[in-house]
């Protein structure tokens, strides 16, 4: 068999999306599913166009709260990761704590955040932050902590200080881990924002879907779903591109 051509390979994801939409449309029509239970692709598209204004406004809200939460997550995650990763003692001390913290479903924080900060953007930002900083901490700390002891000896014998080893070896070495974690963190941040918006906000895509759902306007709910996943996908691709740009050496010229 001939290997698929380059163009075909590039088009493949779009073909997959088109196929999924077609199956969706066909299934709904074939089984005659009422649109207040499961709208067809066409109805979703109609909702997307009809409500473009409100959807745009609410998406923007979701987008910037996510980015702020994500930004906080990156800053805190990076600093915490650097601190934990550069000391074996702290690494061992804090790791179980972090794992335990990560196991808590972040939705459980939302009511607490509402009590502290009220309904609105702040709980959304903080939920996004809470959910996304963990993979960054773990990746940065792991990148630092797995430094070869021999490399450390080579530098230490020359009189290198901790900071030297960190700057010359530790940090560059953990960059691929860091950028890989950004891709995961940005998608998680969207999850955090939307979850918080559905219970504790009157703005954002999460809120929009919740209220549309309670009015049985399922076309709008699905339109919201599609907008979220599109935003998350675009951001994922951005960070994936950034990762390739910044840490090409880690991919060995592939």
């Amino acid at each position: 068999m001939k290997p698929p051509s380059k163009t075909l390979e590039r088009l493949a994801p779009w073909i997959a999306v088109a196929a999924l939409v077609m199956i969706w449309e066909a299934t709904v029509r074939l089984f005659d599913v009422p649109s207040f239970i499961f709208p067809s692709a066409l109805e979703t598209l109609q909702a997307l166009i009809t409500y473009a204004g409100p959807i745009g406004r609410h998406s923007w809200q979701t987008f910037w709260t996510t980015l702020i939460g994500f930004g906080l997550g990156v800053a805190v995650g990076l600093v915490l990761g650097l601190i934990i990763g550069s000391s074996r003692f702290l690494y061992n001390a804090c790791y179980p704590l972090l794992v335990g913290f990560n196991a808590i479903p972040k939705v459980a924080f939302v009511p607490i955040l509402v009590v502290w900060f009220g309904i609105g953007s702040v709980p959304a930002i903080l939920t996004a932050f809470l959910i996304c900083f963990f993979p960054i901490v773990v990746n940065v700390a792991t990148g630092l902590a797995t430094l070869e002891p021999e490399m450390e000896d080579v530098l230490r014998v020359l009189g290198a200080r901790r900071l030297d080893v960190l700057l010359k070896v530790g940090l560059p070495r953990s960059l691929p881990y860091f950028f890989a974690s950004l891709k995961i963190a940005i998608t998680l941040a969207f999850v955090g924002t939307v979850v918080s918006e559905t219970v504790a906000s009157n703005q954002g895509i999460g809120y929009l879907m919740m209220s549309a759902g309670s009015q049985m306007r399922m076309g709008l709910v699905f339109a919201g779903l599609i907008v979220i996943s599109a935003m998350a996908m675009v951001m994922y691709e951005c960070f994936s591109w950034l990762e390739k740009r910044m840490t090409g050496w880690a991919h060995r010229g592939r």
Partner: protein
Amino acid sequence: MASAFVDFEAVALSYDGQDNAIEGIDLSIAEGEFVAFVGPSGCGKSTFMKLCTGLHAPTTGRVRVDGEPVNGPLKITGMAFQNANLLPWRTVLDNVLLPLEIVEPYRRQFRRRREEFAGWARALLNTVGLADYADKYPWQLSGGMQQRASICRALIHRPRLLMLDEPFGALDAFTREELWCVLRDLWQAQRFTVVLVTHDLREAAFLADTVYVMSARPGRVIEKREIALPRPRSIESTYEKTFIDLVHALRSRIGDVRES
């Protein structure tokens, strides 16, 4: 010996505070001497290196280098290990330059004299046959080439003491012999002091002036053997009878250690 460069006096080291990893080490190495350490795995050869370079302090005894007691890392040493440990995001040239970014006084001058330093690095790479690879990345090099670069990195700050911990252990036999000659020529030209840890008795006998044989844990020096073979030595000479007898004698000594 009056002019001992490295001087160990009744040195012992215990990592866990209970039993010694190495003990009763009494030896002196002259400046410019090439010594090799052989012995069973886990006998404390790498530990000896840590003591010698000041990366670890002895539990008892005294370590002196160049007449001064060793306390803290010794900047006049360069080190290379079995893994080349080159940084994959730096070119070969920048890898070789790394020590100069760290060790004083070069560290302070690095920005100003970068071109000059790069010249040193290129000259060094040239002597090990890597002139054309200075601007390549480590992963574009074979294992043997990476090891050459690693030795250049160990030598760039012109150390007086070169510590090599099984530097050729991961290489095939032909590449290894090639690198023996590279190291021999570097040493013959610059006459730094070398401490080489190896599992290869031919390697020890071919390169060293003195071979120390260590016992199983707790490591002690059980034999010191001067290698009187004339220099410069050639790979050819390792197939002559005198050389083979010498390696054989070392081999049987190690055999005794393993049995006891």
